[in-house]
């Protein structure tokens, strides 16, 4: 061991402390950066040469310090869990958005909604029954009927609009997913090259992991770490990103509503094979276009069909103002197509007695349909009840999932987040280490001085 090797130890200590201070600086600078994982300098004590040689023998226990790398502190299990939980939350959020829109479309319970229009409609038949032959009362009934028909038409249009908007969202989500998958693949490539050349591509890895989390939110994809720092992303068991290659997705199925047949689905662009999307925003959007919105439309169509058939059947049972059997009041059997076909107030079938009698019994019978057990009112109430329960369930799940995600994020933060107090403590520790190393060098320097002056 030479005297100068002691100086070398001091230099290494200085540079290690310097590097550690830099890392502290980096951590403090990124304390609030989203997705940043704190970094730590890994130091090892350097021994002497362990390979024995004839002329060169070194003291194996004294060799200074070596900085072997800058480690990114991250728990891959927690990350995987976070991806899963974030995916579920995104799925629930998308579904709860759909239900929120549906609820605001119908706007029940209110004093102006369809329920109220139905009540007013049935009530106006009583007014005819009280005053058969009064054209103004019959006109009111026709007005109420067309108000209801246009409300139903409006609901159908809004539902179709919501479907259309969600279908557009699916396309843009798919293109985002494709972009993100490509970015992850690109970053994987960069990280692999950097790792192979011995660098610490921590910031690239943070950047990539943030995108992987977004991918998980969008699709419910899961990520598994691969060799040389890369991450492979799989969707429904098939690779979405594999090393530095990524696969593209595409949305298949109808693009307009109501479509003749088929559901919207996601497939792999290369092979056309169906892709399984079970979670994430995309799954929520698929549920909306394939189940929630069409289901609500079916329910609404049933209300419209029941309204039309109830009113038309009762019309046919009576006689109108001209003494003829009543003709159908509504045409169309879906919410989108229902319309009032009568325009002449005298064509409202008021009387149940044949001419020359003209009573209001048929109108009274019509009014009584308001309380039919399977009438349009009951169907609409059941439909709104179902919608409310589903919406409430989704909202409750969302709230629960939000707290789960919060906990998982806290756990991740507790591993990867920057704690200022800790960094300050490290700062002081490395500052002292630096001072001590400097002091050590100056002591060695003075011993060398002593040696030099001694030999003079």
């Amino acid at each position, binding site marked *: 061991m030479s005297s100068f090797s002691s100086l070398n130890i001091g230099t290494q200590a200085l540079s290690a402390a310097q590097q550690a201070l830099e890392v502290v600086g980096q951590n403090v600078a990124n*304390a*609030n950066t989203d997705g940043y994982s704190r970094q730590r300098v890994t130091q090892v004590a350097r021994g002497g040469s362990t390979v024995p040689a004839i002329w060169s023998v070194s003291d194996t226990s004294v060799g200074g310090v070596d900085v072997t790398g800058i480690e990114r502190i991250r728990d891959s299990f927690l990350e995987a869990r976070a991806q899963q939980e974030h995916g579920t939350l995104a799925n629930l959020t998308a579904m709860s958005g759909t*239900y929120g829109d549906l*609820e605001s479309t*119908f706007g*029940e*319970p209110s*004093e102006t909604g369809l*329920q*109220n229009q*139905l*009540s*007013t409609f*049935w*009530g106006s038949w*009583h*007014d005819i*029954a*009280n*005053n*058969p*032959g*009064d054209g103004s009362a019959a006109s009111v009934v026709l007005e109420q009927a067309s108000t209801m028909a246009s409300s139903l038409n409006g609901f159908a249009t809004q539902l179709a609009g919501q479907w259309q908007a969600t279908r557009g969202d699916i396309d843009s989500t798919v293109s985002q997913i494709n972009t993100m998958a490509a970015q992850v693949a690109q970053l994987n490539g960069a990280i692999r090259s950097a790792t192979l050349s011995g660098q610490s591509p921590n910031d690239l890895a943070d950047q990539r992991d943030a995108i992987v989390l977004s991918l998980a939110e969008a699709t419910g994809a899961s990520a598994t770490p691969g060799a040389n720092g890369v991450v492979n992303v799989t969707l429904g068991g098939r690779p979405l990103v594999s090393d530095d290659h990524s696969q593209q997705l595409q949305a298949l199925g109808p693009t307009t509503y109501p479509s003749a047949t088929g559901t919207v689905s996601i497939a792999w662009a290369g092979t056309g094979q169906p892709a399984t999307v079970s979670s994430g925003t995309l799954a929520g959007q698929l549920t909306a276009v394939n189940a929630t919105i069409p289901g609500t439309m079916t329910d609404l169509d049933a209300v419209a069909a029941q309204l039309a058939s109830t009113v038309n059947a009762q019309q046919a049972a009576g006689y109108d103002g001209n003494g003829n059997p009543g003709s159908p009041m509504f045409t169309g059997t879906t919410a989108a197509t229902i319309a009032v076909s009568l325009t002449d107030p005298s064509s409202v079938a008021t*009387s149940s*007695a044949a*001419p*020359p*009698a*003209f*009573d*209001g*019994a048929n109108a009274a*019978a019509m*009014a*009584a349909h*308001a*309380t039919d057990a399977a009438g349009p009112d009951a169907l*609409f*109430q*059941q439909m*709104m*009840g179902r*919608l*409310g*329960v589903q919406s*409430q369930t989704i*909202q409750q799940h969302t709230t629960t999932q939000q707290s789960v995600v*919060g906990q998982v*994020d*806290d756990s991740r*933060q*507790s*591993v990867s*987040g*920057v*704690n*200022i*107090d*800790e960094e*300050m403590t490290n700062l002081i520790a490395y500052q002292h280490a630096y001072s001590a190393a400097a002091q050590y060098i100056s002591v060695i320097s003075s011993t060398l001085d002593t040696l030099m002056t001694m030999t003079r």
Partner: protein
Amino acid sequence: MTVRVTSASLSRGVLANLQANLSRMQNTQNQMSSGHRITKMSDSPVDAVAAMRLRAQQASNDQVGRNIDNGLSLLGQADSTFTSMSSMLTRVRQLVVSGRNETNTADERSAMADEVDELKKGLVQLANTTYLGRPIFAGTQNVSTAFDPTTGQYLGNGQAVQRSVSADGSATVGVTVTGDTAFSTLFSDGANPGILDRISAALRDPSGPDALDTELTNLDAASQTMQEARSIVGARYNQLLGLQTSSQATADTLTTKLSDVQDVDLAKTAIDLQIQQTAYQAALGASAKIIQPSLLDFLR
């Protein structure tokens, strides 16, 4: 394991809790300002559907109330018509009784006959009383008058006009009596002349008013029939009044129920809001104290 607490997780937790506090306060404020506990279906699906049903019931109950009011005014009209007619029939009876008197000259009897004719016209006119354009004594027949103004023949049918007095249409109350039952043969007897015409003819009869004896009996019988019809009208009026009272009671019950289901308990909500405000302020204070200090504050 000691959980590392980082400034990011601290601020996330603080923000999430403050947000939760704020959103609870917003909910409570919404409830306070709208007065409703339910503003959308998912707030409480069961209560919301109940509210929809109750609103529908309220609407049909209101309508039943309107039907009853309508029936009451029809019956009221019938009753006042009967009152006028009955005083006119009394006058006819006086004329019959005095016309039967042998001391009257033919001229005097002829004058009496003229008055009976006029009274008959008046009675027919009253029997043709309309309510909103329809004769009230013609049953459900679609005619402009219940009795032919010239021949006195009944043009209506025997079906009383009904008003439905329950929401489901199961209960109805007849709100008119038909002309053929109320006025029997006063104005005509089928195609033959009625009692009044026969009285007028008997008064004019040169051979003397002997026939008036029979007609007096007939007239009394007809008056009796009319009084019976009038008592039916009165009974139905009372029935409807009873139904009106119960319909108003139902309306009150429905309003209370609806209010129970959808309206906020103001006192409770106000206290909730106060508690939430206090909690929010406490959370803000605590957050300010926790987030602020770090080791930096103590390093020289």
